[in-house]
C-alpha cells in the first residue's frame, strides 16, 4: 500500500510539472502559423516554434544534414534573407567570414517564430524521399557489396553522376533508431527507375552491418536524395580519377556515363587497394579501356602478398601521376576516399601544376 502512495506522489509531482509546461507552451511558445518563402517562389506555411530544417523537411524540402539537426555537422546551410534573427554562437564555428557576410546560416539552429525568407540551391528542390525495394545484391569483394534498389514511390530519379543518396537503416537488433547514412550512387543517370549503391563493411558500423548481415532481397527501405556537389563538370579537359574501396561507386557512375556517350576526353582512373582480394569490377573497367576512345584503368596495390602474383603497379598512387598527366592546366581531378588520401593526392596534383579549384573531391 505504501509503495502505491509513493508512486502516486512521484506521479503527481511529475504530472503537475508536465501540466505547467503544457500550459506555458500553449500560452507562451505558441507563435501561430508562419510563412516560409523559399527562393521567392514557393511558399509554405508551418506551425511556428520548431527549427527551420525540420519545418522544411516536413514540407518535402530536404536540406542535407548528417547529424540530424544537432548543430554538429554544419551541412544544413541556407541563405537567410529575412526573419531568421541574429547569428547564434552555436552556428559560428561552422560559418566562414564570407558566409557570415552572405547571411548563410545553419537551418537546424534557426527557429521559425515569424515569416522567414530563405534561398536554397535550386537542385535541393529535386531532393525527394524514395521508397525502394532491394532487387539485387552482388558481393564485389569479401567486404564490399553492390546493392540495386528498384524505386517504387516516386518511381524515377534525376541525378548527376557522382552524387549520393542517404539510406535509412531500419530499426534492428543492433540499433533502436532509424539511422541515415550517405552512399554514392554507382549506377548511371540514364537508368532512372533504379539505382545502385556500393557499400563497404565498416567494423561495428550501424548501417553497414545491417546492409551486410541483415538486409535481404525484397526488403523495402527509404532513400533520400540526390545530394552533393561532387559531379562531372561539363568541360572538355582531361580527367584524373582517384578512388579506392567503395569510393569506386561515384567514379563508376561517371565513367559508365562517359562510356555510354563515347566521350573523347582523356581519362585515367587510379584505383587504390591493398591486395588483389580488394580489387573488383576489374574486367569491366579493362573492357572500357578497349571500348572508350581514351580511357586508362590503373589499379595500384599498396601491399600485395607474394601469392597474389601481382605484376601491376604497387606502392602509393601520387608518384604515378606524372606519367599520365599530359597538360596539368587542362586537367580536372575527381577524388573519392578518406580525408588523408585526398589531402595527399591533392598535394601532389597541385605540385604538378593542376589548378586547386579543378580538383573535386568527396571525402568520407
Amino acid at each position, binding site marked *: 500500500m505504501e509503495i502505491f502512495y509513493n508512486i502516486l506522489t*512521484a506521479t503527481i509531482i511529475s504530472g503537475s510539472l508536465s501540466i505547467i509546461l503544457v500550459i506555458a507552451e500553449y500560452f507562451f511558445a505558441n507563435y501561430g502559423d508562419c510563412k516560409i518563402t523559399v527562393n521567392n517562389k514557393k511558399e509554405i506555411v508551418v506551425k511556428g516554434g520548431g527549427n527551420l530544417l525540420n519545418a522544411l523537411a516536413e514540407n518535402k524540402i530536404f536540406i542535407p544534414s548528417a547529424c540530424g539537426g544537432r548543430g554538429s555537422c554544419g551541412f544544413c546551410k541556407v541563405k537567410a534573407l529575412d526573419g531568421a534573427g541574429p547569428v547564434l*554562437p552555436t552556428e559560428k564555428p561552422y560559418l566562414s567570414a564570407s558566409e557570415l557576410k552572405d547571411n548563410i546560416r545553419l537551418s537546424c539552429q534557426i527557429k521559425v517564430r515569424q515569416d522567414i525568407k530563405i534561398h536554397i540551391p535550386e537542385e535541393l528542390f529535386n531532393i525527394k524521399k524514395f521508397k525502394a525495394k532491394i532487387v539485387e545484391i552482388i558481393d564485389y569483394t569479401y567486404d564490399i557489396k553492390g546493392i540495386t534498389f528498384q524505386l517504387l514511390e516516386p518511381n524515377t530519379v534525376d541525378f548527376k553522376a557522382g552524387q549520393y543518396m542517404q539510406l535509412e537503416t531500419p530499426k534492428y537488433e543492433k540499433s533502436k533508431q532509424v539511422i541515415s547514412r550517405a552512399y554514392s550512387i554507382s549506377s548511371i543517370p540514364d537508368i532512372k527507375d533504379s539505382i545502385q549503391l556500393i557499400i563497404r563493411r565498416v567494423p561495428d558500423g550501424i548501417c553497414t552491418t545491417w546492409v551486410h548481415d541483415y538486409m535481404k532481397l525484397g526488403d523495402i527501405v527509404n532513400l533520400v536524395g540526390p545530394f552533393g556537389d561532387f559531379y562531372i563538370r561539363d568541360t572538355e579537359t582531361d580527367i584524373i580519377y582517384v578512388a579506392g574501396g567503395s569510393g569506386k561507386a561515384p567514379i563508376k557512375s561517371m565513367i559508365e556515363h562517359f562510356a555510354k556517350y563515347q566521350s573523347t576526353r582523356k581519362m585515367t582512373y587510379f584505383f587504390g587497394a591493398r591486395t588483389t582480394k580488394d580489387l573488383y569490377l576489374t574486367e569491366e573497367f579493362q573492357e572500357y579501356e578497349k571500348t572508350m576512345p581514351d580511357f586508362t584503368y590503373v589499379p595500384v596495390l599498396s601491399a600485395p602478398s607474394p601469392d597474389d602474383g601481382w605484376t601491376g603497379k604497387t606502392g602509393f598512387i601520387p608518384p604515378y601521376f606524372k606519367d599520365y598527366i599530359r597538360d596539368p592546366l587542362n586537367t580536372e581531378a575527381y577524388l573519392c576516399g578518406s580525408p588523408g588520401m585526398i589531402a595527399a593526392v591533392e598535394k601532389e596534383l597541385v605540385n604538378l601544376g593542376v589548378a586547386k579549384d579543378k580538383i573535386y573531391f568527396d571525402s568520407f
Partner: protein
Amino acid sequence: MIDIHPFIIFLAAIFTSNILLSNFLGMCSFLSISKEVEASLGLGMAVVFVTVLTAAVNYVVYYQILVPFEIVYLQYIIFIIVIAATVQLTEIFIERFSPALYYSLGIFLPLITVNCAIFGVALFMIIRKYTFMQTIGFAAGSGIGWLLAIMALAGIRQRIKEKMVPAGLQGAGITLIITGIMALAFVGFSGSVIIQ
C-alpha cells in the same frame, strides 16, 4: 547541519572545491562548447542561473515533499524531472519575453538540461545537510566556479588554435590534458576551507 557562513561556502565552491575541476562534474558541455570564449560565457551564465534556480526549487521539493511523504529514495528521479522542467520553463519564458537574453543565454539551456554539475549540486546539498541559504551560496559558487573553469579553458583553446598540436592529440585529447593541468592548479587551493 554544519555551521559555516553561506558566503564562505560560496567562495569555497568557486575555488577550493570547484565542482568541475575537483569533482569532474559537467564535463560533456565543458569539453564540447569551450571552443570560443563568447559561447563559453553564454553557457557559463546559463549554468549559474540554472544551478541556483534548480537548487532552490529542489531544496523546497526535497524538504517539503520528499521528506514528509517519506519518499527520499526517489530523490534522483524527482531531481532530474524538476531540473528538466525548470529549464524548459525558463527557456520558454526567456524566448518569449527577452529575445536579446535568449540569443545570448537561452539557446544554451537545452544543452544543460542534463548537465551533471547541476544534478550534483542538488545531491551535495542533501548529503552535506546544507540550510537553504547555504544551498544558495553553494549553488551560486558552483555555477560561477564552472563558468570560471570553462572561460579559462576556452581562452587557452583559442590561443592554441593556431599552434602545432601533435595530430593524435588534436581536439579532445589536448583539451583533456589542459583540463588535467588546470585541475592540478586547483588542487593547490584544496583543503584551505572545508565545506562538508
